[in-house]
């Protein structure tokens, strides 16, 4: 529940923090920052059309019903779900991720972030040209 620039900036910062935490060997921070970098990129895209997620259930509903069909695609949904449930299991549940699992998690975070950021930039460029946001 913030404006577009806040989500966009937080997303960029968290991706940088994920990379730094990987170097530092701080796996809880890798997991947290990777997920939230993608989450806030998604929220920035929502903010373009005056939407906010009020909960994680809300966020995934909006993703599946609005963002995926119009902008992000099914592959992104699968990446987001993987990141969400990995984070829940690693940070709240019984699991301690292995180095290999973390490497995959980071790769998926990077891919999902890059995709959402590209889509967002496209939407912003389109908006600046005066076109409809959902052309």
């Amino acid at each position, binding site marked *: *529940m*913030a404006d577009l620039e*806040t*989500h966009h*900036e*937080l997303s960029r*910062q*968290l991706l940088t*923090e994920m990379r730094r935490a990987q170097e530092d060997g*701080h796996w*809880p*921070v890798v997991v*947290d*920052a990777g997920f*939230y970098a993608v989450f*806030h990129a998604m*929220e920035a895209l929502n903010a373009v059309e005056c939407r*906010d*997620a*009020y*909960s*994680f*259930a809300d966020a*995934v509903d909006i993703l599946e019903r609005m963002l995926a069909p119009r902008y992000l695609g099914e592959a992104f949904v699968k990446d987001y779900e993987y990141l969400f449930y990995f984070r*829940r299991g690693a*940070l*709240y*549940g*019984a699991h301690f991720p292995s180095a290999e699992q973390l490497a995959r998690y980071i790769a998926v975070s990077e891919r999902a972030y890059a995709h959402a950021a590209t889509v967002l930039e496209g939407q912003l460029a389109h908006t600046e040209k005066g076109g409809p946001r959902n052309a």
Partner: protein
Amino acid sequence: MADASVHRRKAELCWALAERFYTEKRHEFLCMNLMMYAVGHWIETALAVLEKHPSAPPRGVPHGDRETQMRKHLVGGKWLEGEAADRYAEMVARRHTFAEGGIQDRPFIERYMELARPLVSQLQALLRTPQFQG
């Protein structure tokens, strides 16, 4: 669900990272989350010993029921004062996962740490008592 020993390990790991992020003035959003994870895992350590784990809402994470279980079993069982549960509820309420009000800054995290520290001390003391030693 994790057992008590896993919750304890995760709480200690997250609190050590939270203190490090706080001291080194690292990213406040992540520092806030680390504090919350530590406190949550310590609460769940105690609840796990009592076999009173919280559940999670559909497509969500287990915050809501944690306070309910804490009040019913840890405060109700006289293991903690009601003030500890109030403090935990305040931590949940002030945590802006969805970036409400903007990105967390240094004054925010200083207030958040001031809120968290007494609760952390109370939980650590509780978990050192023989009843809660694994």
